[in-house]
């Protein structure tokens, strides 16, 4: 048996997609690789194949989807990269954050409470969240890809997780409001 390539189901997401192991990614390339890999592995290609091939196709197709899901979004990609670099995020066990960041979070929560039912205030809040998210994304990229400072990078990913949760709450209120006002 001569295997042509060393790729295995155990390869990490970056190896599987054959992209550099870093935070900054080319989204279009990821999406293209995902489709190319699915074109090879998707169970639809193996409807008439033997059971072993079918099982293998299912495993690979699942693995490719898993990697794509993780690589596609910055937070899951960052958390995965932290783990690869030996510094897992441990989001549940470790919630300590810098005081300034926590102050900002509290201010936002208050603003969200005050904005009840006011669409333009909610939209303002959503814009602010987006800006701060962008700042933390650059911090993460700088730390992961240029400074190689995993501790700073991990802090940035955890901050992004907080921001993500908050912006979900904001969007939920905006949705509720637009559903009610768009009969």
């Amino acid at each position, binding site marked *: 048996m001569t295997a042509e390539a060393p790729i295995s189901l155990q390869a990490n997401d970056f190896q599987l997609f054959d992209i550099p192991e870093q935070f900054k990614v080319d989204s279009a390339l990821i999406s293209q690789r995902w489709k190319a890999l699915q074109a090879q592995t*998707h169970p639809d290609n193996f409807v008439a194949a033997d059971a072993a091939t079918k099982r293998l196709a299912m495993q690979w197709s699942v693995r490719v989807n898993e990697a794509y899901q993780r690589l596609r979004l910055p937070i899951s990609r960052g958390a995965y990269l932290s783990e690869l670099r030996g510094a897992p995020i441990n989001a549940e066990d470790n919630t300590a954050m810098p005081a300034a960041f926590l102050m900002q979070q509290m201010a936002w929560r208050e603003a969200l409470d005050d904005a009840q039912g006011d669409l333009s205030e909610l939209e303002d809040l959503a814009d602010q969240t987006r800006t701060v998210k962008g700042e933390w994304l650059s911090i993460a990229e700088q730390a992961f890809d240029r400074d190689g400072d995993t501790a700073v990078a991990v802090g940035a990913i955890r901050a992004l997780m907080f921001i993500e949760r908050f912006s979900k709450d904001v969007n939920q209120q905006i949705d509720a409001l637009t559903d009610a006002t768009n009969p």
Partner: protein
Amino acid sequence: MALLQISEPGQSPDPHQRRIAVGIDLGTTHSLVASVRNGVAECLPDTSGRVLLPSVVRYTGEGSGRTIGYDALSGEAADPANTIASVKRLMGRVRADVHNVDNLPYRVVDTAGMASVDTRAGEKSPVEISAEILATLRFRAEDSFDDDLFGAVITVPAYFDDAQRQATKDAAQLAGINVLRLINEPTAAAIAYGLDQHSEGLFAVYDLGGGTFDISILRLTEGVFEVLATGGDSALGGDDYDRALAHIALTQGLGAQAPTPEALSAEDKASLYAAARRCKEALSGDAVQSATLACPLEVGDLHIEITREAFAAATSALTQRTVQAVRRALRDAELENDGIEGVVMVGGSTRMPVVRDAVAKLFGKAPLTNLNPDEVVALGAAIQANQLAGNHSGDALLLLDVIPLSLGIETMGGLVERIVPRNSTIPTARAQDFTTFKDGQTALALHVVQGERDLVADCRSLARFELRGIPPMAAGVARIRVSFTVDADGMLQVDAVETGSGVKAHIDVKPSYGLSDDQIADMLRDSYATAEQDIQARAVVEARVDAQRMVLATQSALDADGDLLSSADRAHIDALMVQLKGVEHSNDAAYIEAQTKALADATEPFAAARMNRGITQALAGKNLNAV
């Protein structure tokens, strides 16, 4: 069981001997079968030239015992209690879950697993009734081609949950159909539409059928159909518009003391709904401003004019429910409605101007209606069936679909822990760790649910199973990893393992609503479609077919990638193939199966090497053109 046609060993199959593969749209009000002939997908007509088969089965108590389609429909008014229409609404449901169940002209009762209909021929499950419709379409296809069917792609509403999908698969099995794949109706429509129009970009498919509503948002790029989000309501369709119209017609025609439609006799209900449907269809005509709703009833004859405005007012709440589902799907796809290239309309109910107007207003552009909304789903399924059966020779198309509803596990306090979020691309697998609640707890009750709500009580229960034999430990110490696997049909399997001790439990999510293999076997024994075949003979035939499939699959793998094998491995596989061909005609099912398994085991490393080669080529960009 359809037998495969196989050419002489070592030779490629005759290119003219195509496998007969069809697409079937099993609809609430009517069903269709389509196939690709000479490169073009077309719906297959019955002997009278009609492509639609009304999804109606009437148990007559005479002759073969039942009539199906137009014959059944014509008996509906006279014999409503034994004429089953819209059975799709009952699939995978218990009685309490069926919307408007008291309003149906036939009697729905609870039986083991799911609701059934009490007819003069006894209790009939929705699976059996659907199987009658599917078998009729299967015979239509086999007569059209004068050949056995290799397999079918069957469409289901995107919003169907696991129980409803399983029921559909069971019905197909009962009808003797090899299911190549279940695909979602809006996705099928997108295939037919996208290939027909050579479209690229973001599309919304708005699919309002007789009893179900789906919305899917897709990205089309070079033969790849990527579903970004899907949503809908599996109990909302044209039938509900008929009922709303019937309701106002009664009040308008008989005054304040008019009974509700629910209070009418079965015969009156059937004729009133039929009249409402005719009136609705008349109102959908070009520039029609009003239409007559006329029907004789025991409680007094109805003869009234219904205006477009009155119809719109009576049904606006229904249309509004679809609009909200569209908005949610757009949010899930993280899109604004102005990024949408086109909106494809599917399902007969999208002929209603009230629906078209609402969709045009929502997206700010006129919806696309150039393909027949009744046929487009079956046509797309036929194109996919043709490809899955290996008949297709041109550029491959790739479907990347999603699950419509989140899947999770019940945790303490009746809360749901989501494990697979909705709109995850399938196939997918996700796992999460759980632990014990009490000291010394040795068993864990797992309750699998589907839905978006946080409370178990608000979600659909799919299955319950237990993990037993956990070594006693302090509360919170055991680590129980629960893994969910969703295959390309959107069907779920759940595994649980205690990682310290290795104690395992596994369930195919099936027994809650689906039928057990024994029940299927019983039904097959009784069924008309396979009455002559006895189960034993069937097992031999199936073993032979599997053996032939294995030989064929191995041969084509060797032809394509035989160079991956060392000469010793090649010789071993060749020897096993010769051996398997030698027992193909044996009457001993177990023996054939053992030989098939021997070849399967021997080719497993070869299959892995082939998959690796494919992946390497994908990354090297060699196959990018095919994507």
